[in-house]
């Protein structure tokens, strides 16, 4: 008798607790998905904490951005989307938009205007690469090198990657065709403006692979953003490509004998999408959050914690000093005029078409 009572009481309590949690989620909680690590920390400081303080909404962090595309598709098929706002790179956002998994945004209507009075769509300008994607930061994939292992003449341009005579030793490159093929063609004498035209042809692709062939034996291919910093710190590689923020923390925060190149840096974008299939209340809250988190001041605030450039033009003048190190962040932004003399902007539309095909060819090339 006693046991039965206890059991029943426990069941009731558990049930009511579950209901309360479910209810709480509806009322005052939202789940925001991001990349984790230093990046999520910068978002927590610049966006989540001020937003929670202003509105009382409790923000739950989920570090699933790397699998966001697949998970969102699975959630959508199951008819139960548990995420409210998701941080993804632009190419993933385009895929999600194409798949109908991300909501279309009316930029001028649903985002805050710039501090300088410009409309949101003017303020973001060319960075609005998809109808569903709200840009947040500009980051770049660029090259870092060991100052103590490159000899007397430090590398000054991207083609140092392919120069194994002057800079012998291993280098690390990302295990995917994007970026590497562009750099290979650039260093094989193709003019920057012609690269994508050349790469559309079989011969152009063969040319890029042939250039990559020349260094194939001295490349360690990475797939996680932390790989190159670790390889550089351990002296496994002489130089390697990674995201500029990773290099910043390696050089400025961890004080390693590493320097970085800005030449031919490949710009890419990271930002927010809102999944389709949210209830009207959750959608409204997600939009409210995104409007808050992408206004001019908030975007500039994020640059205090991580060296990625704010996506709004109006935020650039407001970029201040690093929150802990106290150094000026502007010279560490990929978008800083001094750094952006020679840049690529990842050609999203082109890669959307050629990614499947070239990725297959790249994998075959790797395994040969």
């Amino acid at each position: 008798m006693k046991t039965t009572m206890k059991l029943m009481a426990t069941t009731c309590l558990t049930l009511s607790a579950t209901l309360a949690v479910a209810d709480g989620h509806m009322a005052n909680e939202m789940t925001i998905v991001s990349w984790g690590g230093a990046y999520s920390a910068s978002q927590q400081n610049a966006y989540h904490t001020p937003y929670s303080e202003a509105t009382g909404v409790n923000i739950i962090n989920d570090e699933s951005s790397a699998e966001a595309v697949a998970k969102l598709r699975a959630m959508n098929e199951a008819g139960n989307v548990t995420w409210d706002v998701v941080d993804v790179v632009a190419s993933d956002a385009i895929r999600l938009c194409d798949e109908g998994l991300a909501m279309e945004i009316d930029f001028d209507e649903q985002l805050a205007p710039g501090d300088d009075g410009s409309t949101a769509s003017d303020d973001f300008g060319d960075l609005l690469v998809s109808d569903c994607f709200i840009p947040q930061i500009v980051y770049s994939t660029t090259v870092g090198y060991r100052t103590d292992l490159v000899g007397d003449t430090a590398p000054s341009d991207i083609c140092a990657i392919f120069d194994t005579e002057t800079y012998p030793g291993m280098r690390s490159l990302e295990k995917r065709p994007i970026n590497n093929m562009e750099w290979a063609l650039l260093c094989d004498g193709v003019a920057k403006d012609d690269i994508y035209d050349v790469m559309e042809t079989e011969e152009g692709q063969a040319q890029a692979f042939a250039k990559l062939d020349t260094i194939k034996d001295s490349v360690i291919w990475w797939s996680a953003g932390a790989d190159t910093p670790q390889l550089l710190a351990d002296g496994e590689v002489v130089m390697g490509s990674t995201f500029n923020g990773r290099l910043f923390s390696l050089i400025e925060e961890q004080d390693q004998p590493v320097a970085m190149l800005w030449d031919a840096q490949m710009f890419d974008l990271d930002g927010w999408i809102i999944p389709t299939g949210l209830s009207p209340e959750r959608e409204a809250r997600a939009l409210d959050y995104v409007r808050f988190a992408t206004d001019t001041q908030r975007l500039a605030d994020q640059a205090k914690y991580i060296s990625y450039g704010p996506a709004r033009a109006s935020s650039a003048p407001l970029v201040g000093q690093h929150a802990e190190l106290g150094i000026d962040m502007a010279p560490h932004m990929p978008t800083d005029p001094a750094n952006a003399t020679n840049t690529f902007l990842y050609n999203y539309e082109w890669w959307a078409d050629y990614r499947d095909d070239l990725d297959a060819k790249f994998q075959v090339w790797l395994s040969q």
Partner: protein
Amino acid sequence: MSDTTSGPVLAADGRPLKASLNRALRRQKLRALMLIAPLLIFILVSFVMPIADMLFRSVENQIASEPLPRTTALLPDWDGQGTPDDMIYEALARDLAVAVEAKAHTRLGSRLNYEQTGISSLFRKTGRGVDEIGEIAQDVLEDTNDIWKERDTFGLLFGTPAWVEAINAWDVEDSQTRGAAPTFDANPNFAEQFPGTTSLYASYVLQTTSEDDNPLGEKPWPILFHVLAQELPSAAPPSGVPENLALALGEASAALNGLTLDDPKAVFLDIDDDWGDAAVWTTIQTYSPAYTNGYFLNSVDMQKGLDGPEWRPENEQIYIVLFVRTMIMSLSIMGMCVLLGYPIAWLLANLPDRKANMLMILVLLPFWTSLLVRTSAWKVLLQQQGVINDTLIWYHSTAVGKLLDPVFNTLLNAFYAFANAITWGWNLLNNVWGGVDATYFDWAAQGFERLTLINNQTGTIIAMTHILLPFMILPLYSVMKTIPPSYLRAAKSLGATNWTAFWRVYFPQSVPGIGAGCILVFILSIGYYITPELVGGTKGVFISNRIAYHISSSLNWGLAAALGTILLAVVMGLYWMYDKIVGIDNVKLGG
């Protein structure tokens, strides 16, 4: 029984004994089934069904037929030469008009892009331009009579009055609480005379109501006017139409006489030349049926050609190489696990309890550590500037090292003899399959340079052997624990040497444990992808890495499912072979 009467034996209640017995047994079976029902249902719902669903995706193919029903119905008759008929372009214009409103055309584009590069942007681009088809007809009709500017005209013409009433009633209800919109009911008079317009209007109604809008209150799509204008001149005036609408139809018919409407083919070709490319149409045609073997062909490096399946171009063939590599490397890992695990399990089973417990903790410790931590630790150990290489170089630089180099090198070589044997096997396969590298572990031949132990197959085998070792040791241990030590002593007392006693008496009794361990390790290792991704470099990655890529990055779930199905079939096949050769009854996890 000294029974003289024929017929079945009866129970006490007069029923045949057999039936009675059966009934009692059935009740018992049913009760047993009820007892395991919760578990059975749980396994069905949470394990069997999702797997079946995933496997089914490898042949399921609604990517084209769902958003393009009209086009895919006509395409099978196209002979694949030149460009399709105008009729097919017309059908595509109607399908795309619906798909663009539902935002389904970009999804279709990105799926077809797996097969034909460029379709993704073709569909995106076409989606922006296709809505101009029908503007000519719309202008003409609106000029003849203002009634065509009314939003509900199409609904009044093509729906039954009952449907119009129902949809208006649905519209005024609260959008939060109301049920599904009433299904479209086509006006039979019109449906017969205007089949195209009716079917398109039905799609229009479905789309607008799915957006919670009233189809009678929304602007009709231009393409509706286009289709109506095509069908109007040849149609007989339908009966039972309100007077003002009949009048408008008559006027429209007269105005359209001799007028040239939009030519969808020209519009498509104007948007992008690729619409005149047979390859694009062939891709859509290939993916028109509801079921396809395309994913399976793709996963064995083939594709659908004009005359049946053909090999993909050589620079796109990857999956067979990966399947073979996965098998060979998993077998190597399994072999390493047996070699390393067997002595440890023997020690565990034969040491005094105190020491055995200590050793057991050491075996289990890696189990409790995160997989990523273990893999990263191997990076620190194995990399060129890592602990092992540093030690080797330091040792070589010392005087003792130089003196003992030949000895040490021999030891090192002996230690890697097994790996060398595998390498030899790889070389053999290399000639057949290509794509598998060979690394000999002769340190002297390498000039006492730092060894490359990671970012290749060696790295994957070392790291995965370590990670999977407990799965070999534990079943081995539990089997060895049951082998009485007296057997070995008895063998020796009967004159057997140590080796004979082990090989003839002990080993055969431990075989069920080896079998169980091998199955566990092999099956686990062919599905591994995190460790190969981190330490495998380019040649140490498995087929599961590609499956993971297609699931999480390219979203080509059909291909991922096909690859997974093949992997599952191969495992089942190996399991069956194992059962035939060794016998599955000989596998023991303990006891």
